[in-house]
């Protein structure tokens, strides 16, 4: 798998899950954390820095020794964390950890540096508390990932790249199927399913655990 110099998948996952516009709402905060965690894991698996291997009914995340370290700070942070663990942890544990580690802010800050987001401050009217906000530098760029997926689904004339197929799976897993498939021609779901079915096993595992974690959130309310 080729190296990924910038965390493109995690940016796209951020814009799809955390950015809201007229066409698409942002998902629940915990689900954003889970989705960004899944995207970051998938990206590092794709770039060959991490591996997901099944063992005794669990899918473990392992550091891959080949190649240099990830070139971006987000990827480096996670890959060093994985390497620093005394024993391998399973995908659900990493998703849980990434969801509580404020991956959303880390990703947003990364996107500020990349010029994709603009950091701002908002003072609450009653408490006077200052909150950091992140807005897209360009609304069209913010809408681009979902628009790209929808373009694939509407034309169905070419094969989706692997990362976009995973992004599609992630979009479905967080509950944004309606935004994805609304007004799509018949056969779009079958076209998507055809891509999702052939995702490599590690990405399938991340996708499955993300779907399960989102469903768990719906049941327990992350209490």
């Amino acid at each position: 798998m080729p190296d990924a110099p910038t965390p493109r998948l995690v940016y796209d996952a951020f814009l799809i899950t955390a950015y809201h516009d007229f066409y698409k709402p942002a998902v629940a905060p915990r689900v954003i954390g889970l989705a960004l965690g899944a995207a970051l894991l998938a990206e590092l698996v794709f770039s060959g820095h991490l591996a997901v291997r099944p063992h005794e009914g669990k899918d473990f995340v392992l550091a891959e020794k080949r190649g240099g370290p990830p070139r971006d700070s987000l990827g480096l942070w996670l890959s060093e964390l994985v390497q620093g663990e005394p024993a391998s942890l399973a995908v659900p544990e990493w998703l849980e950890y990434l969801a509580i580690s404020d991956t959303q802010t880390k990703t947003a800050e990364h996107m500020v540096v990349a010029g994709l987001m603009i950091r701002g401050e908002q003072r609450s009217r009653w408490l006077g508390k200052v909150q950091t906000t992140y807005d897209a530098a360009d609304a069209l760029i913010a809408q681009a990932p979902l628009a790209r997926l929808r373009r694939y689904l509407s034309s169905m004339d070419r094969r989706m790249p692997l990362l976009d197929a995973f992004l599609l799976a992630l979009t479905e897993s967080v509950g944004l199927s309606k935004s994805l498939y609304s007004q799509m021609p018949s056969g779009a779901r079958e076209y998507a399913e055809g891509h999702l079915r052939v995702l490599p096993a590690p990405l399938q595992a991340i996708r499955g655990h993300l779907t399960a974690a989102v469903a768990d959130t719906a049941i327990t309310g992350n209490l």
Partner: protein
Amino acid sequence: MSAPSPASAVQSALARDKLGTLSLLHFSLTAATPLTVIAGGVVVMFAVAGQIGIPLGYVIIAASLLLFSVGYTAMARHIANAGAMYAFVARGLGRIPGVAAAWVAATSYCALQVSLYGYLGYVAQGLFASIGLDLPWWAFALVAWLLVGLLGTRAVDINAKVLAVLLTVEVAVVLVFSVSNFANAADGVSFGAFSPTALSGEAAGAVLALAVIGFIGFESPTVYGEEARDRKRTVARATIATVLILAFIYIVSSWSIITAAGDDNVVAAATADFDLMFSLAGDQLGPVWETVGRILLLTSVTAAALSFHNTTARYLFALGREQVVFSWLGRTSVRTCAPVAASATQTVAGGLVIVLWAVLGLDPVVHLFYYLGTASGIGLIALILTCGIAVIVYFARDRRDESAWAARIAPVLAVLAMAGVMYLSVIHFHTLLGVEKGSLLPKLVPIVFAVLALLGAGWGLFLKRARPEVYAGIGHGAKAPLVQAAERAAVPVGAASER
């Protein structure tokens, strides 16, 4: 790949985020609404049963559920989707009985939740009539139905906060009323209510069935098994503490009512006045406390409706995720991640029943709250009993390092106790419904549940033959897609139809 070390940075961060016994206790107790059980259930039990053995009934049920909890929480440590009893049945007795149990469970929870609108309408009608607002019961029921429907589509944590505030106030008021009852004893504190002869004859089954309903919610700590600080101890402690706390509240408050009214007078007093609890408070503490109690009863029934709405929605959601029923029930709200489709389905069911009962002019207390509520009680007792059998079978195959007490002795004792409760409830069901022995209605309810179970089993059989990947995910709830994906990967394309 060895077991993760507790010294790891990630594990330490995850451990800090885990839930302790008190947190789990908070969630399970918010599923219980003691004022509704005492004011709506206990007083009616005195009237229906014509006996004073209600506190003894609670002692028996609490002991049975404590025994059940031992094996139940032990098995919860070894299975996914541990919040739903049908999942225990699926893993213990097989997937087909699991689907049968799921259908009975979903129907029972749904009926119990809908029945509360009848009592809610009745309580609100009386309360608002006293301030000059005279509206039919169904108008108040529809307002509450709308409120519960809206809150049900919000995230679970918002509901939990609302329920926690209501619970705290409720428990405080129940304790104040109970202390006042003991302080104003009619004939001194009597222990006659705990005599075995105080709970006998054809009413015993009715009392026990109603007592079980009061504890529903005790099973919820297992839902949070994976978030618990110590999966082995935390969930078991919270479940057992829930049963003990609820038992304490129910036993003390029902005993206090007997003490205040007198052993010989309480049945007549309850028959004459279903609001006996508040009437006693009014006499002893003043009319303000009586009004406070009535207002809190209204909020308590609303909280009960909301709590059971969430439980039912969670059940339907898990079944939708497994594709055991309509898969659209597994949809979540994008913004709140609440199980919005399952919640809306439950809301529609509630609305239809309220409208139907209003159009037919049926009584909200007798025909809705009482008939539907007690009928659901039979279904829930059957569910607990089947779940208990599933625990025995599960550990009979492999004890999985659990103690003999947790894996063998306690589950067997619990099944014997619950089988006794089930038997008495079914043969005394006419007493529970207040109809003649041999009439159609008491026979109809067990038949309906049996038919539901058969239909569920039939559906399970169909899934086994026609959709093996869906069948593989039965009982796994939120994790069903993982199991289904693994099954799909294991089965070559086209092979499914050959099975």
